[in-house]
């Protein structure tokens, strides 16, 4: 049996799972409850995007969350019976995550200095 490169993908899955677990609930609370209820002016959030540290944080959160999904979802589809298509499924999932990551980088680091 050849050496598996799964450890690399599992690292991304694990990092993404940890980051999403720690940071995502509070972010959803902010964007889905505090902002719409008027407890947080959208301008405040908008202004935060100017900060490099915030942009880096969002890049890590979005990119790793997408890779977490890609890895988990690809195994879920196999668990649900799509074993025969497991290689194309994996490719599509990781490619989507990569595409999302690149888009995020462009928006966060490409549009402003």
């Amino acid at each position, binding site marked *: 049996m050849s050496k598996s490169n799964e450890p690399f993908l599992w690292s991304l899955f694990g990092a993404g799972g940890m980051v999403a677990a720690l940071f*995502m609930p509070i972010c959803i609370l*902010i964007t889905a409850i505090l902002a719409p209820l008027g407890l947080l002016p959208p301008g405040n959030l908008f202004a935060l995007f100017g900060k490099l540290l915030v942009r880096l944080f969002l890049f890590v959160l979005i990119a790793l969350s*997408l890779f977490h*999904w890609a890895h988990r*979802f690809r195994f879920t589809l196999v668990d649900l019976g799509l074993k025969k298509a497991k290689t194309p499924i994996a490719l599509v999932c990781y490619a989507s995550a990569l595409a999302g990551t690149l*888009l995020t980088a462009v928006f966060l680091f490409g549009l402003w200095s």
Partner: protein
Amino acid sequence: MQSKEYVRPMPATWWLHNIHLKLFMIRELTSLFVAGYAVFLLVLISHGDDLKTFTDTLLCPTAIIFQLIALPFVVFHSVTWFNLTPKAIVLFRGEERVSPRVIAGTHYFLWAVISLLILIVVL
């Protein structure tokens, strides 16, 4: 004389067999909501150069409804994730294994601290 062995087929609905498997499947499907919110953030930041479209996206009713549905699933991800950390993080002090409660508890504590800090920064 070799008799024929009987091989039982595995049903496609295997994950409905008991509550643990159902909860497992829900846990796995939380990744869809994790990715969904990440995509929402992606769309949001794509309007990072225009306050008006940014605000429209932020306050869009469909987006809010999606997030409100996603929130319990993302919290379920967090809870199941932290509860499983002791399985992967195995630490010994001599003969004694560091209690799983301590490992999981540390993550919950971190979760609370981080959430509080982010709230402070944002508000």
